């Protein structure tokens, strides 16, 4: 089962509280997840804490699943940070701002685990 979702990113208090501690486990826990409505998680047969692969035309990333029923069905939220930015749009549409909200994504369950921050950044150096 693959969920076609609209992906947005944004701030959270935990992401903000770890802004200056980005090498910490707390930052990883605060940012390497994707929030979906629990009905979407059910459809994907995924429980909170399981892993999701989020794929867009710009890349793919593995993150933990989290339920948030404040999200309407079909809306996926990943806190701003290296994991969200692995799959968001670099297109600046003539005004300088990349597409950090509203990117079509395909989301499915995976057995892979999220990369930690340093491994994710290393993948850019080695690209």
């Amino acid at each position, binding site marked *: 089962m693959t969920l076609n979702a*609209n992906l*947005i990113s*944004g*701030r*959270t*208090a935990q992401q*903000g*509280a*770890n*802004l*200056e*501690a*980005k*090498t*910490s486990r707390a930052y990883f826990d605060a940012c390497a997840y994707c929030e979906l409505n629990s009905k979407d998680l059910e459809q994907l047969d995924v429980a909170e804490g399981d892993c999701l692969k989020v794929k867009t035309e*710009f*890349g793919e990333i593995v993150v933990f699943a989290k339920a*948030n*029923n*404040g*999200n*309407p069905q079909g*809306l996926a*939220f990943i806190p*701003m*940070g*290296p994991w969200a*930015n*692995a*799959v*968001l*749009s*670099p*297109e*600046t*549409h*003539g*005004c*300088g*701002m*990349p*597409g*950090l*909200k*509203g990117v079509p994504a395909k989301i499915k369950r995976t057995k892979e685990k999220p990369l930690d*921050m*340093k491994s*994710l*950044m*290393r993948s*850019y*150096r080695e*690209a």
Partner: protein
Amino acid sequence: MPVIKNAVCSLCGCLCDDITVTVDEENKITKIENACILGHSKFQGMFEHERIETPMIRKAGKLVSVSYEEALETAAKILVNSKRTLSYGWCSTSCEAISKAIQLAEETGSLIDSTANVCHGPSALAAQEKGSPGATLGEIKNRADLIIFWGCNPVHAHPRHLSRYSSFSKGFFVPRGRKERKMLVIDVRKTDTAKLADKYVEIEQGADLLLITALRSIINGHEEVIPEKVAGVSKEELLELAKLMKEAKFLCVFFGMGVTQSRSKYKNGDGVASLISDLNQHTKAVMIGMRGHYNVTGFGQVATWETGFPMAIDFAKGYPYYNPGETGANDVLVREEVDAAIIAAADPGAHFPQKALRQLAKIPLIQIDPYANPTTELADVVFPTAVVGIEAEGSAYRMDAISIRMKKLIETKFKTDEEIAKDLIEKVRELKRG
């Protein structure tokens, strides 16, 4: 133990200036009063987070400690040898450092951009198109009876905003605070801020401009043109919203990334400004962008008075040139145009999309920052620096463009961003002279 009152929290654009900090004999902050979760982390984090302790240079793939002089010489050579340098960030630092960064950019013919590039850059473009009718947060606190949060979530991103400046604060003309203020939240998901609102309007993601246009039509007396549903919101609800806005005595739209980063980008901010202008035919209405980095507003101020432009300033031609979409940090990285970068007081490693990072990883990168972060993983020369607002004093501008003087609270062994930028200017001049 010295107790320092009215310390300024240098984390978010609220720039709260009522923090009480206790410092012990060992130069450590032991108690913080009045700060939110973000502020606590800022002050406490000083002693817990991973500081960059020494200057470093990447050798054989690994960052190794070097002397300050060696790092300075290497960084200056990178800047002098580069044909197209990107200078980025300079927002979690003082206006004094920003001024030096602009001077360095001019000296090296670099392109300099702030974190507004991934934040409220489109709001600056919108302001140039339509203006930005604003007010101070003090004015809003004392007068506003309708607070609108549009595409922002201050409970998480600016936790003290509601109690200090907006919904929950008590003001001269609103002495009973929240009881006399209505709170409206417009967003695409029910955030923790939306849960506190009198009215929450959930719109389709990316449809902000449609909603703005519909509201403007109603406010301007053309409700007959409105279809039954706009942006996922019923006509009935739209009419109710327009009435709420028109009947307010003083309203403020606080807007965030939901407005600037979604489809239509700067046209959304342009639309909000037009809506505010329409509302001013009926009542008093203002707008304020919810700024993230504590001094990103300051970057806009300093850059504007020194170069005429608020961000994305290109000195390649020897004079300042500005055209976001062409000269934005992400524009030049995605086009693989820059061949070196200097990044200070910001973390594009965490906040730029993958394609921009692939380019940053390819080119020599100089980083100036107190803390190790994703940008450090891509950096080739790293300078540790003092934390402004804690280890160094300086000026910063709050989200409503009010300047506030930040205090130095504790002693430090680290140089400030301003000192490092000054040293780089000197070294670059020395190398250029040969």
